[in-house]
């Protein structure tokens, strides 16, 4: 059901944890729905220099969070904002149909964290 890449990201997730001095934090989902993702971004000169995540959710939720952090690390905010869930799915080599919604969460969590950063820094969208 899961690809080897999903399993690898689930078993050895990159960038798990929190950033104490995060510039932007995004949280999406709810425990009632069975999934919550929290993204922490450290941003310097419009570039994501560090990122961490925490996830309550299924294997796919963990794997998409993990790979999404890899995909945006070192990218500019503009680049990171363009990340879509289908890019994440492609990168993972596919997800079962009923797990596609978990990848949407990763996209949303990143967007929420960037928004948080922008609003804190008074940047207009």
């Amino acid at each position, binding site marked *: 059901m899961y690809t080897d890449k999903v399993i690898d990201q689930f*078993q050895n997730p990159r960038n798990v944890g929190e950033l104490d001095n995060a510039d932007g934090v995004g949280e999406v989902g709810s425990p009632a*729905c*069975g999934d919550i993702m929290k993204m922490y971004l450290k941003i310097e000169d419009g570039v994501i220099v560090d990122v961490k995540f925490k996830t309550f959710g299924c294997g796919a939720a963990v794997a998409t969070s993990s790979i999404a952090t890899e995909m945006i690390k070192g990218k500019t905010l503009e680049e990171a904002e363009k990340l879509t869930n289908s890019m994440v799915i492609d990168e993972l080599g596919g997800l079962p149909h009923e797990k596609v919604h978990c990848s949407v969460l990763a996209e949303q969590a990143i967007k929420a964290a960037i928004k948080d950063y922008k609003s804190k820094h008074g940047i207009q969208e």
Partner: protein
Amino acid sequence: MQRRYFDYAATTPLDSEVLNEMLPHMKENFGNPSSVYSYGRDARKVIDDSREKVASIIGAQAKEIYFTSGGTESDNWAIKGTAFANKDKGNHIITTTVEHHAVLHTCKYLEKHGYEVTYLPVDEYGLIDLDDLKNSIRENTILITVMFANNEIGTIQPIAEIGKIAKENKVLFHTDAVQALGSVDIDVKDLGVDLMSISGHKIYGPKGIGALYVRKGVKIDNLIHGGAQEKKKRGGTENTPAIAGFAKACEMAQSTLTDQIKQATELRDYMIKGILDSIPEVKLNGHPEKRLPGNVNVSIRYIEGESILLSLDLIGIAASSGSACTSGSLDPSHVLLAIGLSHEIAHGSLRFSIGKYTTKEEVDFVLDKLPGIIQRLRDMSPLYNA
């Protein structure tokens, strides 16, 4: 990788003695039991003998046993069949909130067709309240359907008491005993049960076979119309190999029942204690004593069931979960919600079910690995330490 199976409540491996019982009927002795020639007569005899065997282990008469394609069909048939056949008497059915979907979805369907259904709530252990039941019975109540033992949390309902209440009120009583068969001593006459569903693949028998016990005299419509099989009550060419296998599985279950109950109960209690002792913020679901001998069901705070299952699977352990994430739907198990768990806690629940091949070594393996898995997932969780 060695696989360790802890999902006997979902399905069981076929016992090799059962398979041996089936094989001759798959190959040489394949005839249609409705035929007069010798191929057919051999098959007829196998079916007659099997019906005797299945009947005898639940205290029924052979002619009260009808073979079906499994527990789900039996549940559907029992409920729709009596509902349709007794429409003149009333249109009210009583069931519980913790039934298997085979019962719940059938009741929901009947609601769309003019029937009224009362879903009895359960307490924190999953037990119904007998006074509740009594108070729910009305003039137009035609059927009470309450499961014998719950497939998720293992809770065993007071079947004999329900049987008594049903009889006093002249209401039919069906019980889904799919999980109870082979794990609890069952006597339909003592229990006052009018209809009972059982299934083969939960007791080391074949898949695709089950039975409905219908007490003599109970009015029931067919669910599956067709030929003259099963005394014209259930059409379809008889599945002789599966029937023979089912009967053998029943026989084996009955002959080792006392030992099985003892062995499973010991392992179960050892496993429950092991999990509760080694992992903080874990809660046992279901009743501590009135539970199936092989059922372990726990809720583990802060993390989600599918990710635990996946972690277990990666080291060869097969278990199951009440999390909706295992199926991709939104709501977690209706049973866990019915016993009062929050969505969040329900999502973090795990079921290990123990069967006749389960060893202490397998349990120890789980007890050894589980705490580390839980900790790793908790460390990733935004709810933990939060």
